[in-house]
């Protein structure tokens, strides 16, 4: 779609004519110049040759004339009769080109002279010269000795006017006429030839203009000749074909690009919508989960409270009516109710952890461990644990959550080492390259490394309840807290040789981990 602007930027039909006329003129100039040069060259050569020929023949003619005069004047010289010689010379009046003649005696005196009419000013040489001729001033002078029986009797002198200029003009006139005719023919031929040359060029130009104006790269120029213009047409058509191909490819590529772009947009929109709906689903699921947690914490615990509470009331109020066995069973009911409550509490804590935002502060790990251990020891002062608290680097994290972490790790260590004669619990930490690493080591029951993978799973227990009580949630909670802070947790141990729990925290607490 060429805009008006584009139109004016390219030559239109009117502007094509200078190109045509220019080629026309150039062709004409070439043809005419060639013809004119050829004719001039030929004409000049011919003229020069003709002039030379003319002069040679003039000399020969004049020499023959001098011989004839000499022959005729011989008796007059022999008899010293100037009148007779004069009469012979007068015969030269029939030769208009000869303007003067003289006969000299052998002694060199002028014997007779002749002057053509109108050439009175002519001067004759004072003494005769040897046989020869000389040109000068458009005139030819010629000496010829008169010889009879090997005796020089005298000399004839003839002077002729040679009309070289006139003759040259005649020749030039002819040349001019011939040239004019030849050039006229040349122009006619050129006109005809030029049509054959310019027509295909103009056609190419027309196709080119069509291509520019209509952007139609499928049009082609007609090839009518097999000459250079034919080659030009071929090249032009080849170029059009190439442009057509390239543009086609580009259009296809653009089309493909547009397709993929719109497909991408579509996919994007789809993806966004999917993310939105998934987010909504997730939010709904989260809300459900919250509702579930709430229900569990309130509704599930009410009957457990009743079971535990009324078991206690039964044991208290009716102690007298109950056998020891009945009391034992009641105690089991109470204890299990408490354990069930604990399980629910732990589960809720785990679930709360997923929803609660972490509030990081600087953590003085040594102080936290000390206070946590004191609380634990206060609650159960029965064991004389050898508690060794080493130095530990400070870190960043949520204080409440790390109190929970230490609480769980330390209570585990106390619990699993309680049966040892001398329980030993060591706590320490180091600063590694990019992280802080903390550990809790005990000399307790340890664990079988084959089950290491199960250590941190929810409700995964590696010991029987009658060996060590617990809900199987504590380490899962620890694991969750540590990983939410961007850290790692791992453990090693052997049965009856104690266990060591390590956890790490990044030195730079990244927001992404929270």
């Amino acid at each position: 779609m060429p805009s008006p602007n584009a139109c004016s930027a390219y030559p239109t039909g009117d502007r094509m004519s200078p190109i045509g006329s220019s080629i026309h003129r150039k062709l004409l100039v070439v043809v005419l110049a060639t013809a004119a040069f050829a004719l001039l060259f030929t004409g000049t050569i011919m003229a020069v040759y003709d002039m030379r020929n003319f002069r040679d023949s003039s000399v020969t003619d004049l020499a023959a004339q001098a011989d004839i005069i000499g022959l005729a004047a011989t008796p007059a010289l022999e008899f010293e009769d100037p009148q007779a010689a004069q009469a012979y010379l007068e015969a030269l009046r029939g030769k208009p080109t000869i303007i003067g003649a003289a006969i000299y005696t052998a002694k060199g005196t002028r014997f007779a002279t002749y002057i053509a009419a109108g050439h009175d000013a002519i001067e004759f040489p004072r003494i005769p010269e040897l046989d020869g001729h000389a040109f000068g001033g458009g005139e030819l002078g010629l000496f010829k000795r008169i010889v009879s029986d090997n005796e020089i009797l005298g000399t004839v002198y003839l002077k002729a006017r040679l009309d070289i200029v006139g003759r040259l003009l005649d020749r030039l006139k002819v040349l001019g006429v011939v040239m004019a005719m030849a050039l006229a023919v040349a122009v006619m031929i050129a006109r005809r030839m030029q049509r054959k040359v310019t027509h295909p060029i103009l056609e190419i130009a027309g196709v080119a203009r069509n291509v520019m104006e209509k952007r139609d790269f499928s049009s082609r120029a007609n090839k009518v000749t097999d000459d250079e213009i034919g080659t030009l047409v071929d090249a032009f058509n080849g170029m059009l074909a190439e442009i057509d191909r390239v543009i086609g490819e580009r259009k296809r590529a653009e089309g493909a690009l547009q397709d993929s772009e719109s497909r991408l947009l579509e996919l994007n929109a789809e993806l966004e919508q999917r993310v939105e709906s998934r987010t909504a689903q997730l939010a709904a699921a989260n809300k459900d989960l919250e509702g579930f947690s709430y229900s569990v914490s309130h509704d599930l615990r009410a009957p457990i409270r009743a079971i535990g509470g009324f078991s206690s009331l039964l044991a208290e109020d009716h102690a007298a009516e109950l056998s020891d066995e009945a009391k034992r069973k009641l105690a089991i009911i109470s204890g299990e109710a408490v354990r069930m409550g604990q399980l629910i509490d732990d589960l809720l804590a785990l679930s709360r952890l997923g929803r609660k935002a972490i509030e990081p502060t600087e953590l003085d790990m040594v102080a936290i461990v000390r206070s946590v251990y004191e609380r634990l020891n206060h609650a159960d002062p029965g064991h004389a644990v050898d508690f060794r608290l080493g130095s530990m680097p400070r870190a960043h994290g949520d204080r409440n959550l790390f109190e929970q972490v230490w609480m769980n790790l330390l209570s585990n260590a106390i619990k699993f080492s309680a049966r040892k004669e001398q329980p030993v619990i060591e706590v320490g930490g180091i600063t590694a390259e990019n992280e802080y690493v903390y550990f809790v080591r005990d000399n307790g029951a340890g664990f079988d490394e084959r089950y290491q993978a199960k250590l941190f799973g929810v409700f995964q227990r590696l010991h029987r309840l009658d060996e060590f009580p617990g809900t199987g949630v504590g380490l899962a909670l620890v694991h969750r807290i540590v990983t939410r802070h961007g850290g790692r947790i791992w453990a090693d141990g052997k049965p009856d040789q104690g266990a060591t729990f390590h956890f790490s925290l990044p030195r730079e607490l990244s927001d992404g981990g929270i």
Partner: protein
Amino acid sequence: MEEFDQVDILLVEDNPMDAELTMRGLRDQKLANQITWVKDGEEALDYVFRRGAYANRTDGGPRLILLDLKMPRVGGIEVTKAIKGDERTRRIPIVIMTSSQEENDIIDSYNLGANSYIVKPLDFGSLAEVARQAGFYWLAINRVAT
């Protein structure tokens, strides 16, 4: 003799077993002379503002409200809002009884002016602690008196 008639504790609890256990615990610990038990939030508000069935009650108080959160019809949060929003009653201390430490409940209760909270089942050692912290010295006095 108003002193004698005075209700010490209003227990708002919809679960009868929880209520029984709570009252038993309170008595065992000799924490109060007189406990009135109402079964939901509506009844609690009627009692406190002397409306409906309690329009003609003549006794004073209560001096403390033990309030369950999750109840049918009118919940503990609404009861707290109503009592703490009324000039006549806003000085009555409210201790929320929750089944768990669900955060939102606790935050909501404190925002509305609840004085403290305890987690069920009532650990009466902790109730005594709460009472001490909240300045309920009369509880200790009554304890000696009874």
